[in-house]
C-alpha cells in the first residue's frame, strides 16, 4: 500500500475554534453530593476532572451544572485549575463564578438554584491539568451544597465538562 504524505498544515495546529477533545465527569447519587459550613475559604467539593491539552495555545471551555444551594444567607462557587482559583481572588467569597444571596440577609430556609457555570480558561500548558469545583458559604455554620436536589427526588445529578478549543 502506498503511503501518502500529509502536509503539516493539515495536522497541526487544529483549525481555530474547533474542539480537539472533550472530558467530562458526571455524578449521580442519593441525597447531597457535597456540603460545607465554611465561610471565607473555598472548600474542595471533590468534583474534579483532568485534561491534558494537546497545544499550549488552546483554550479550555469549562462547564459545570447542577443544583447549588444554601440553608442560610448565601453561597459562592468557583473552579480551581490545580491550586489556582479561576475567579482570581483565592480564598475570598467576594470573588466567585456563581453565587446565591438573599438580599434581605435572612437565612432561615433553603435557597437553591440549578446552575450552569462556564469559564474559558487559558492554561498555557500541555501537561495534565486538574480542574475542581469549590464552594463556600456566606455565613459560617450555615450549610452550602453542591449537588443536592432541593425538593423532588432527593438525589443529585451534577456535571463537569472540559473542552479543548484550538486557537
Amino acid at each position, binding site marked *: 500500500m502506498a503511503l501518502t504524505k500529509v502536509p503539516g498544515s493539515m495536522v497541526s495546529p487544529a483549525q481555530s475554534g474547533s474542539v480537539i477533545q472533550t472530558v467530562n465527569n458526571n455524578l449521580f*447519587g442519593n*441525597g*447531597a453530593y*457535597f*456540603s*460545607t459550613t*465554611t465561610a471565607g475559604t473555598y*472548600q474542595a467539593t471533590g468534583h474534579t476532572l483532568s485534561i491534558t491539552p494537546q497545544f499550549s495555545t488552546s483554550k479550555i471551555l469549562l462547564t459545570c451544572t447542577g443544583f447549588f444551594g444554601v440553608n442560610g444567607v448565601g453561597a459562592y462557587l468557583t473552579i480551581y485549575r490545580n491550586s489556582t482559583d479561576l475567579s482570581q481572588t483565592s480564598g475570598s467569597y467576594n470573588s466567585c463564578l456563581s453565587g446565591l444571596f438573599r438580599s434581605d440577609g435572612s437565612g432561615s430556609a433553603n435557597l437553591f438554584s440549578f446552575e450552569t457555570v462556564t469559564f474559558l480558561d487559558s492554561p498555557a500548558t500541555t501537561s495534565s491539568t486538574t480542574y475542581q469545583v469549590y464552594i463556600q458559604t456566606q455565613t459560617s455554620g450555615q*450549610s452550602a451544597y453542591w449537588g*443536592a436536589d432541593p425538593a423532588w427526588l432527593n438525589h443529585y445529578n451534577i456535571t463537569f465538562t472540559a473542552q479543548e478549543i484550538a486557537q
Partner: protein
Amino acid sequence: MIFLHDAIRALNSSIVNIRGEDAFDVNGNPVTYDMAAAQAKLTEMQAAEQATVAHKASAVSKLTALGLSADEINALIG
C-alpha cells in the same frame, strides 16, 4: 428540605465538610459518625420541618378567616 448532611452535622459539631457519606473536620481529617443515629435524626428533623409547614398553613387559614388580606398575611409571616 432537610438532607442527611444536616442531620449528620446536628449530631457532630466538629464536622465541617461532607462528601457523600464521608465527613471531615475543619482540618480536613476524616470524622466517624453513627449512620443509624444520623438517619434517625434526619427523620426527626424532617418531621419537625413538616410540622412547621403545617403550622404555617394553619395560621394562614385562621388569619384569612379573621378577614386579613393575603398582602397583610404575607407582611406578617412572609
